[in-house]
């Protein structure tokens, strides 16, 4: 089978076989060229113009590297024959390549628009539809792969043990999607916090018997990779605080969603129609409705501005105080345009997806949180903000700051978190 190569700023070259390239050339996949990975973030970080197209290819490459590392170290333990290895490698590459085909315009920024179907479910439907399904079925004779096998990655009803295993590479806590988006978003936005030693991290991946006693083989990290893992978690933390939750980006997300609610209302459920929706179509719609306030604010780069923010990590008292502030603003500033933003994220999901690191002396597995003080010490991001047009910023800011200080627990003026900037 002839190979094609594509240049990529992270991986150098990414290689595709003929059928993979045919899939890349379908309208389903080409649509991803016109869906920016970071929505309107490029209005803040001008370099962040990259698309889901390159990201999807990158995820396929990272998934392949992770798979090859695990096979090199653990083929004997898995007891897979060559045919099973080849099948699973190809299956993983296809799922990784196609995982984002269902994304709505502007990626996550517009996901809240009805019908509210998760992009993974739409990806599953695209995989099972023409032209992608016929192309995947080209692998049936040589590898026994069908479109249904690839779609099972995105179905809650999957009961194929190999897919359960492969999903750990593709969508776990240390997964190909995360490695690519963190590194790529960092590279293109120019925010260096997102860089980490992914080569070391991949090299330290291993399989262990599940310590909870189920006997399945699960992915873990050799102790030598712990610092690379910590760097990845910190990268994610900083990318959220510096880029994904950037105050201006959040304001644009708000204007975008409000615009979509008015002029798109809901995305079509028919794939034939859905495939027509990309960033360009929405921009065209904004130009058509350029008198609309939200469209105008995006097109003229004049979003609402931040008048007040809590700290990035708040406690129960501050959460209650912000709710009180919000109620008071609604009452006192009835004639002023204001919106409120809640930015919440856990810097890792090790609570949700138990991840183990091997002891350097005994080789015994223990939970990442138990081994890493850095990971243990990271708090959830929980930040609330008040946005308003430039013209009303000062009065809203003054009111919020005064309120926040006057109602602080203990000493007055203890937690003045915001200021005009």
């Amino acid at each position, binding site marked *: 089978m002839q190979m094609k190569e594509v240049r990529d700023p992270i991986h150098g070259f990414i290689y595709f076989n003929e059928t993979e390239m045919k899939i890349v050339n379908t309208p389903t996949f080409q649509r991803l060229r016109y869906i920016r990975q970071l929505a309107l973030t490029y209005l803040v970080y001008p370099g962040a113009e990259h698309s889901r197209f390159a990201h999807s290819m990158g995820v396929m490459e990272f998934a392949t590297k992770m798979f090859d590392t695990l096979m090199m170290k653990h083929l004997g333990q898995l007891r897979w024959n060559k045919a099973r290895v080849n099948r699973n490698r190809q299956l993983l590459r296809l799922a990784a390549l196609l995982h984002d085909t269902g994304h709505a315009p502007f990626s996550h920024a517009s996901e809240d628009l009805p019908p509210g179907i998760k992009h993974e479910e739409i990806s599953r439907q695209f995989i099972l539809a023409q032209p992608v399904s016929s192309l995947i079925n080209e692998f049936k004779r040589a590898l026994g792969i069908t479109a249904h096998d690839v779609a099972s990655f995105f179905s*809650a009803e999957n*009961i194929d*043990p190999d897919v359960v295993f492969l999903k*750990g590479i593709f969508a776990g806590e240390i997964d190909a999607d995360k490695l690519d988006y963190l590194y790529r978003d960092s590279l293109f936005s120019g925010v260096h916090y997102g860089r980490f030693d992914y080569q070391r991290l991949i090299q330290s991946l291993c399989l262990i018997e*599940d310590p*909870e006693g189920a006997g*399945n083989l699960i992915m873990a990290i050799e102790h030598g990779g712990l610092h690379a893992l910590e760097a990845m978690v910190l990268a994610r933390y900083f990318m959220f605080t510096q880029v994904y939750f950037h105050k201006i980006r959040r304001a644009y997300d708000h204007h975008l969603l409000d615009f979509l609610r008015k002029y798109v209302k809901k995305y079509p459920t028919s794939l034939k129609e859905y495939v027509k929706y990309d960033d360009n179509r929405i921009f065209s719609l904004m130009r058509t409705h350029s008198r609309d306030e939200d469209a105008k604010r995006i097109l003229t780069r004049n979003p609402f501005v931040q008048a007040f923010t809590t700290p990035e990590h708040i406690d129960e008292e501050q959460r209650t105080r912000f709710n009180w502030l919000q109620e008071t603003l609604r009452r006192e500033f009835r004639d002023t345009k204001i919106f409120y933003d809640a930015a919440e994220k856990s810097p890792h999901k090790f609570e*949700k997806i138990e991840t183990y690191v091997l002891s350097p002396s005994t080789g015994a597995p223990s939970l990442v*949180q*138990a081994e890493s003080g850095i990971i243990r010490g990271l708090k959830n991001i929980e930040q609330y903000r008040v946005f308003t047009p430039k013209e009303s910023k000062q009065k809203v800011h003054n009111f919020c700051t005064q309120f926040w200080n006057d109602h602080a627990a203990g000493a007055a003026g203890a937690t003045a978190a915001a200021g005009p900037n």
Partner: protein
Amino acid sequence: MQKELRVAVIVALAQSAQTRLGKTQVQKLVYFAQNSAVPLEYGYEIYHYGPYSFDLARELGSLDALGVLNVESDPNGFGFDISVGKFAEKFKLEAKYQRKIEKVIDQFGRDTAAQLEVKATIHFVYSVIKKRIPSGKIKAEVIKKVGALKPRFTEVFIRNCYSDLEKMDWI
């Protein structure tokens, strides 16, 4: 409303637990509670330990932070012990759901983590394939699939778990 019900169910399970309660046990007990017509609406999929809800896993972390549960790491570095926290008593379950939870505890409360894992996996696989396989072949197919998903469990162990579920009318 649904969120309160979810918390109340988890608290009720933690209060009634008859053995050490780890995250795997909570996952499986909630799975059976949900399949007893308690409308929790967790999305379950097969993961390392059988049916698993990522939303539930996240919520267990939040409930620990809020003092509704105590989720403590095992001192040996793997696994967790879950017990009720100081604010747990605020969450009471309606009588109609309390009866369902008591039944789940009665049926599964003394099972080991391994039994719970296999039983929940059997039930999950059964629910998926019953739509597409003739009824006479379901049992053999479920045991085969569960064996492939859980290679360390013997066929006898899986068959015994299957029989338990049959006796309790779960399948």
